C-alpha cells in the first residue's frame, strides 16, 4: 500500500527566535492551548520591551508548530509558556522546545530553571519530569480562571552534576 503512516515519521524541525511576524500563528496556537490565553499585546510587549524575555518558535515545513519562552533573570531561567499546535502534538516538538530553552539558558549563564504548571496538565508534567524538573511547592489559586493551584517545579541541574564515585 502506498499509504505511509506520517504520524511516526521523524520531523524536520527548525527552531529560532520568535518574530513579530510569527504572532498571528502564535496567537492561534495560544488560543487553542490555554483556557485564558495571553493577549497579542502581551506577546508584543514581551518581544519588544522585556529585555529579560527570550522567545523561540519551532517550525515544520515553514509553519509555526509551537513556541516557548522564558525570562532570564541573573542565574535563573523562568519558563513562561510552552505550547504546540494541536495537529503537531505528540511528535516531540514540546520536548525539543524545552531542550532548546535549556541550552540557551545555559549559554546565558543560568544555573537553574523553574516553571509553574497546572495540576490537571498531566502531559506537561510528564515532559518536565522527563527533563529533570521536580515539584518544589504550590502557588495556591495561581490560575485565576479556574482557581487552580500552580505546581512550582525546579530543575537545578543546568549546573554540572557531581558523579558518584
Amino acid at each position, binding site marked *: 500500500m502506498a499509504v505511509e503512516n506520517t504520524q511516526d515519521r521523524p520531523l524536520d524541525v527548525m527552531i529560532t527566535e520568535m518574530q513579530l511576524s510569527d504572532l498571528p500563528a502564535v496567537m492561534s496556537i495560544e488560543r487553542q492551548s490555554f483556557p485564558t490565553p495571553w493577549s497579542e499585546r502581551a506577546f508584543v510587549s514581551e518581544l519588544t520591551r522585556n529585555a529579560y524575555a527570550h522567545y523561540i518558535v519551532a517550525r515544520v515545513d515553514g509553519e509555526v508548530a509551537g513556541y516557548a519562552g522564558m525570562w532570564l533573570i541573573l542565574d535563573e531561567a523562568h519558563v513562561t509558556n510552552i505550547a504546540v499546535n494541536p495537529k503537531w502534538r505528540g511528535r516531540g516538538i514540546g520536548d525539543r522546545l524545552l531542550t532548546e530553552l535549556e*541550552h540557551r539558558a545555559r549559554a546565558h549563564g543560568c544555573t537553574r530553571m523553574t516553571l509553574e504548571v497546572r495540576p490537571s496538565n498531566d502531559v506537561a508534567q510528564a515532559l518536565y519530569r522527563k527533563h529533570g524538573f521536580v515539584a518544589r511547592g504550590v502557588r495556591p489559586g495561581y490560575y485565576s480562571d479556574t482557581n487552580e493551584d500552580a505546581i512550582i517545579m525546579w530543575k537545578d541541574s543546568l549546573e554540572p552534576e*557531581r*558523579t558518584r564515585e
Partner: protein
Amino acid sequence: MSERILAFDTSGASLSVALWEGGRTVWLFTREFPPGRPGHAAALVPAWQRGLVECGWSVSSLDGVGVTVGPGSYTGLRIGIASAKGLALARGLPAAGVGTLEALAWPWLGPECAVLAWLDARRGQVFAAVYAAAAPAGGAAPGGAGAAGAPGAPRTGEAPGEDAAPAGTGALHAHAAPGDAAPLELAPPARMPSAEAAELAAQAAAGAGRAVLCAAGDGELAPGAAAALAAAAARRGLRLWRAPLAARVSAEAVAALAAARLRAGGGDPLTLVPLYAAPPHVAPRTAPGA
C-alpha cells in the same frame, strides 16, 4: 565590541547558525534533520539569509565568519568550510575555524574545572581534547596561569583534589555565561582509545589544579569509557563532574570562539582546513604517504 559575526556548525546531525554582535548572540537557529536524512547543503544558506533578514543585517554588514573545522562528518565539514571560505573570499571577510571539541566544551568552561570534550570515534576510540577557561580578570582560577598550554606544568595554586572544587554545598560554583575569551587548550584534539583519553584528562586537570568535567557529544559515554574516566580521576583524588545536558555543538559557541580568534589576528580564509575524524579512504595519488 560591535563586531558582527556569522557562525555555523555543520559537523554533526543537526545544523546550527548564529549571528553574533557586541559580544553576544543576537540570533540562533537550530535545525534537526530526520535521522539519516541530513540536509545541511540545502539548508545552510537559506538559514543565514533568514537570520540576516530577521536582524535587519545584510551580508555586507558582517565583519567575520566562524565555522567548525572538525572532527565531524566528511560531508558536513566540507559543506561548512566550503561555504565559509566562499563567503569570506567573495566578500573580503576574515574567517576563523573552531574545533568541534572546543565548541562542545565552551558552555561548561568555568574557573574550577578542566573540561574533557569527547566524541565517539567508534571501535573503542574517541576524539578527545581538554580545555580550561582562561583565568578571569579577578584571577580566581586555581593554577590557571601555570597551566597555560602545558599539561603537567607546575601548579601555582592550592593542592588539587579537595581544593579544586569548592567546599560546602558540593555544588560547582560560578558558571557565568562563558563569554568570548579564548579557552586554554590543555590537551589538543586527537583520536585515541577512550581509556587513554580518560588518563589524559585526569593528568591535565591535576596539572591545572582543577576538577574534571566531562562533556560528551551525542549523548552518553560507553560504560567502559565512563568507568575509565571515574578510575583515572579517583586515582588522582580529583572530583569528577558531568555535563547534565546531552552536550551539543552550538553555533553560539562557534561564534564566541571565532570572535576571540579574529580579535587575536587570525582569520585568513585560506588557512581553513578540515580536521577529519579519520583519514579519508580515497586520497589524491600525489598525497604524501601516511
